[in-house]
């Protein structure tokens, strides 16, 4: 590959990568892959790649057009057609075909997190969580819950699956939610265990520390008298009463659903 061809090829690859990163940021698709802390750095990376792409073209006068790869060994790209294909085809296929979310089978392969002790940010509660032991409210539970709980226009607490999972493990938080009406959004999954009557399903949100690679599916159980039947991974909003029955020796979250309705996927599909 001549020095000039190498330069144009490198510039083209950087251009496509830069445009992709900038497009992902501007279109909001980046939210399906990365924690918000990394959105701006991703955008900056895209701009830097575009700047390098342009700079490679504007500095072409420094290149000796007769220079061959084996002479200089410092040309900006030393690969052939296969290398170009590896650098571009997966990216373009991902941009074109990726649904921006995990499938149900991927989520099940990751394993549903139904106990807050399996969450990355878990720290043991101050008060004992197991039923039957003396339970002392922690300081935080003495605060007025209205100061930190958000409510919708109908007065229902707007909660995340992860909030309720923590509440199941900590008496102070549990008191904030127990037997109160809540609104929770997430993705529908059939209940594969703990569903003898067939009237339960799982409501799942992906909990992310850094990016989709470390996503953990956080799931709570929803009990619905009229069986909700949605395709797997459909985004739904559940309005119901939060309960924390003891099953398997620990408190679990069960929402007694009053309504289950399909919703549009939120801009932020992850919780953090």
């Amino acid at each position, binding site marked *: 590959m001549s020095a000039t061809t190498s330069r144009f090829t*490198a510039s083209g*690859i*950087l251009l496509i990568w830069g445009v992709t990163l900038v497009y992902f940021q501007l279109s909001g698709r980046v939210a399906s892959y990365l924690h918000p802390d990394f959105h701006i750095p991703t955008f900056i990376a895209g701009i830097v790649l575009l700047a*390098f792409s342009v*700079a*490679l073209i504007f*500095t072409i006068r*420094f290149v000796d057009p007769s220079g061959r790869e084996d002479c200089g*060994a*410092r*040309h*900006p*790209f*030393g*690969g052939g057609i296969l*290398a170009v294909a*590896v*650098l571009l085809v*997966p*990216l373009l296929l991902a941009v074109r075909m990726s649904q921006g979310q*995990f499938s149900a089978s*991927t989520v*099940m*392969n*990751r*394993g549903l*997190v139904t106990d807050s*002790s*399996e*969450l*990355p*940010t*878990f*720290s*043991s509660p101050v008060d004992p969580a197991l039923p039957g032991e003396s339970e002392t409210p922690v300081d935080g539970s003495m605060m007025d819950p209205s100061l930190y709980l958000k409510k919708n226009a109908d007065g229902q607490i707007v909660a995340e699956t992860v909030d309720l999972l923590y509440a199941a493990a900590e008496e102070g938080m549990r008191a904030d939610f127990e037997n109160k009406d809540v609104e929770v959004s997430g993705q529908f999954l059939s209940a594969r265990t703990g569903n003898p009557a067939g009237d339960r399903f799982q409501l799942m949100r992906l909990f992310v*520390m*850094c*990016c989709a*690679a*470390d996503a*953990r599916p956080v799931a709570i159980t929803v009990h619905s008298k009229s069986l909700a039947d949605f395709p797997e991974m459909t985004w739904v909003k559940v309005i119901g009463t939060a309960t924390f029955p003891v099953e398997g020796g620990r408190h679990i979250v069960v929402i007694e659903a009053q309504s289950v309705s399909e919703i549009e996927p939120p801009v932020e599909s992850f919780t953090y």
Partner: protein
Amino acid sequence: MSGLIDQFLPARVMTRFLPRSPFAGVCVSALMGLVFPMCECGIVPVIRRLIAKGLPVSNAVAYMLAAPIVNPITALSTYAAFRGQGAAEFTTLRLGLGFFIAALVGMAVYNLSIGSVLKKEILESVALGSADSGGGGGAPITRRLVAAMDAGVRDFLDVMLYFIVGAAAASVFGTAINQSLFLPLAMHDWLAVPSMMGLAGILALCSSSDAFVAATFVSFPAVAKLAFLVFGPMMDLKLVFIYAAVFRRRFVFGLAVGLFVLIGLICLRLSVIGL
């Protein structure tokens, strides 16, 4: 950074600042991440240029293996992730074992011939770098900046090539394999450690966030989590491909097996003494 190293770092200047003793040099290199923290993906193009500039391969390997673990960012994230689970002790153990393994492997590489470690193209660049006494020499600054950009872009694209292949393999394993298959192994003393290292190799997580994932494996013993956190940043599916951009395939294979056995044995020994 690799482009700037290529053009503005005079050849062999680093060797003047490193201790003359090979052992001390390797140890200092394994601690360089404290000052120049790098992740496991970004460090490969940097060490490639450092090797071309005369940094001994043993030192480069020690820096490459240790820097993703022995750095302030990883230390803080490990401490945060293991709060309530002996965070200080666990962080110290992770950094200590990471340093020890990197220094040990660095000394092993010191005893190998450079030709058995580096790819042919990298070997040639070492020869070129040795001949080049002053980075870009006496060329005008504009020309040197352009050359630095060219070198940086080349390194970026070279490593990206391997990174994409590695990331594709890691993502297939990370999504298609049922991770609950690993959980029964947690109950078995001898299998918990290698199975967690296998999981680290498959998940290919970044060293700055892997501790948050490891901390959730509550059913696994602490030594298995330690093995996960030391082995993962040194060797995983994507790194196999990225390392292949610099090192011979046989060396990468040997490194993978050696790290697996070494970290596994040390962690099993730690479990025997009651960690």
